[in-house]
């Protein structure tokens, strides 16, 4: 049990950027697509199959259970959440109709939309929502965190629930809308039956615009249009608002080789491909029948193991930060500068409500001499340090390789150790196995989701900080925008004072779509509703 939960936390928090991340230019292609042409006939757009060249087979399609990107990218077609993020990352009601918050901010009364059908024909009612919230508090890392504040969830009537908190917790709606380990609404029986286990393929019953059909593991996942889908009307974008399924089928086909993906788009084998090396951006742009799709996808970091020598010493961590030439690393790893951005903050500048650059002055300072003197005066004894990474991800491997070279220049002895992803997760749990890990974290939407800072967890490199804990607590109580900004600024400051991790660069992911796919709006991951194919 303990083992499972460690693994769950890891998976959840890390949100493996399986989707080939690449730096974070502030590029959104959202403007590429015109607003839905209301005059065009829906029937004309309907039909056909979209074939998606998918970078990695998800380990499960249980969007509540697994925090990895491939799970999300399939899952959000099948399932829907109580609340969801819109194009600008704001929470919007999805399965919920509306909500009210009591004056003391501890009671949330949430009404549920009527006549929302599940894929099995039954209709969403309060008891399904409650059962889903219950399971979410157990299997989801986000939910587990929120459960500290949730006193009770009870049914008021068939379409109303009431969530009572034990103290003010302002992140509740953000948590309810989290796009990873999401609070997806599933039928009560399934939620209870599955309990702590991931959903089996037969249990993949949601309310989404597409329903699960078949999963040929390691090869293909097939979704089909859900004819009875109950859509909202609002044009909110993101994972929220109106969703129209134009395609009859979505085929997620597992393809590992990016060259095969590109050639496959050229020869009309695929319509969309995920996670392409940014070096190929120009090739894609100059190809007549395909278009690049880009979106922010978090950042890469190097996490030092703070549970043991030498990195338990802040001075050695500072040496680490000064020793790494992030500009050189980014340039070598990502190539095309549209796809990475230098920024030392916890959130992306695009996330205006969450962004603060306080304390990040040292982010780009590359000072070998300073690093050397910091290291020399520390008690680092010349023992070799181990940089561990997963060899499934080229950019981690490349980052580790260059970091090794740069750390050796200031006097570290470095060994590289790589494992296949699953083994890597296993090894990560034990502080004896590593000193540094190179890993990416996809975009987060609340400080509660920052798993790389989870107190005492292996994914944070066993970070212990009263200061950070206090800030998280304050965060749940902030009222005004001003207070919020103050806490966020202080959070960034703390991270840079204590250096629990060393940030590399913000990444932007490059996907490609065929020019036959119309009105596709780019967001944090591929979604195939409100888009259609035409010659």
């Amino acid at each position, binding site marked *: 049990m303990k083992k499972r939960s460690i693994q769950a936390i890891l998976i959840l928090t890390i949100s493996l950027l399986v989707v080939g991340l690449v730096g974070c230019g502030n590029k959104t292609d959202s403007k590429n697509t015109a607003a839905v042409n209301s005059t065009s006939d829906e029937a004309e757009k309907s039909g056909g199959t979209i074939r998606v060249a998918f970078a990695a087979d998800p380990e499960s399609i249980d969007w509540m259970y697994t925090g990895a990107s491939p799970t999300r990218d399939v899952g959000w077609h099948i399932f829907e959440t109580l609340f969801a993020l819109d194009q600008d990352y704001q929470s919007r009601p999805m399965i919920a109709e509306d909500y009210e918050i009591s004056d003391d901010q501890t009671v949330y009364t949430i009404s549920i939309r009527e006549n929302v059908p599940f894929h099995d024909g039954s209709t969403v009612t309060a008891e399904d929502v409650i059962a889903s919230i219950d399971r979410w508090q157990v299997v989801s890392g986000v939910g587990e965190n929120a459960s500290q504040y949730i006193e009770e969830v009870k049914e008021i009537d068939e379409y109303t629930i009431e969530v009572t908190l034990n103290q003010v917790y302002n992140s509740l709606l953000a948590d309810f809308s989290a796009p990873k380990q999401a609070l997806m609404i599933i039928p009560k029986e399934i939620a209870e039956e599955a309990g702590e286990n991931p959903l089996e393929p037969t249990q993949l019953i949601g309310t989404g615009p597409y329903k699960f059909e078949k999963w040929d593991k390691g090869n293909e996942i097939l979704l089909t249009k859900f004819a009875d889908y109950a859509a909202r009307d609002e044009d909110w974008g993101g994972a929220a608002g109106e969703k129209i399924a134009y395609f009859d089928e979505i085929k997620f086909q597992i393809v590992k080789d990016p060259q095969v993906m590109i050639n496959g788009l050229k020869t009309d084998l695929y319509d969309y491909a995920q996670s392409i090396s940014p*070096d190929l951006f120009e090739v894609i742009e100059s190809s007549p029948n395909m278009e690049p799709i880009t979106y922010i996808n978090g950042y890469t970091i190097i996490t030092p193991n703070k549970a043991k020598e030498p990195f338990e010493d802040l001075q050695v961590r500072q040496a680490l930060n000064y020793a790494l030439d992030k500009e050189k690393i980014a340039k070598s790893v990502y190539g095309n500068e549209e796809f990475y951005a230098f920024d030392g903050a916890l959130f992306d500048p695009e996330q205006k409500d969450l962004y603060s650059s306080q304390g990040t002055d040292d982010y780009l300072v590359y000072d070998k001499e300073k690093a050397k003197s910091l290291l020399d005066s520390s008690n680092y004894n010349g023992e070799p340090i181990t940089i561990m990474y997963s060899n499934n991800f080229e950019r981690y491997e490349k980052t580790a390789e260059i970091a090794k070279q740069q750390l050796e220049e200031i006097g570290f002895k470095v060994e590289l150790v790589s494992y296949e992803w699953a083994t890597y997760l296993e090894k990560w749990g034990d502080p004896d196995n590593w000193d540094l890990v190179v890993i990416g974290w996809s975009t987060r939407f609340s400080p509660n989701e920052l798993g790389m800072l989870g107190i005492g967890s292996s994914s944070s490199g066993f970070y212990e900080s009263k200061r950070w804990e206090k800030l998280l607590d304050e965060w749940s109580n902030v009222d005004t925008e001003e207070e919020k900004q103050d806490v966020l600024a202080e959070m960034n400051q703390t991270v840079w004072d204590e250096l629990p991790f060393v940030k590399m660069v913000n990444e932007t992911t490059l996907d490609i779509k065929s020019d036959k796919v119309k009105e596709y709006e780019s967001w944090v991951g591929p979604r195939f509703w409100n888009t259609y194919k035409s010659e």
Partner: protein
Amino acid sequence: MFKKKRNVVSISVLCMITIATLTASFWLPHSPSYIDPDFRLLEPSATYWFGTDDFGRDIFARTVVAAKVSLFVGIVVAVASTLLGTLIGLLSGYYRKADFLMMRVIDGMLAFPSLLLALALVAALGGSIVNIIVALTFAFSPVMARIVRSAVLQINNVQYIDAAKITGTSDIIILFRYILPNIITPIIVQGTFIFAKAILAEAALSFLGVGVDPTIPTWGNMLQEAQIYISIAPWFSIFPGLAIVFTVFLLNILGDGLRDALDPHAKKVKSRKSLLKKLKLAKS
């Protein structure tokens, strides 16, 4: 005469490659490991003969240095499988009682295409240089054992061996003084082919991502890195690939030439059995 010259040429070129890679640090114009992103993915030029890779490293320097690992794996596997295979073959051919069991084991191992056997073993042991050598040795020795065994069988009935047996000469002396020198030709030839095949196999394993540590430059690892850049930086794939083809080709020429030079009767294949033997010589 042409054939003799051919052998001399291929041996000399192989020696030159070996010397070049062993002394690489003294004469290479660029470091094989210096990372400079300002020079990444440059075309071949007078400065960078083979161009640069995705880290801005000199591909020529890396190709030369990579030869060290590839040749090392090749030669160790060739020598180890030759020794192991020869030993098994000798014993099996000479001691007819042990033969049955040993040959069944060999037949069982020959039931796997050698790349498959190597893959399965690397999957079990993990991919380090040592494990790759072990896996490839295991995969290539059975062929050698077969060949040595049938060579021993042919010579076993020759009169002077019988004579030696009757005069009470010890088995060890018969095996290593009388038999081995007479069957050395197919052993050397096959050893050369194993050398070539081991280089190809190591490259394939590394390319498939189950081989040598990816941070060590080998031809297979370089090609694996180069794969996604093939359309924008074809030189990154072409030169390490040519290095493999060139080296393996030299070894194959040498093996072929040695067979003709050392064994003038090799061409006279009469029965299916000797044809089979020949096939196995060429392909495991």
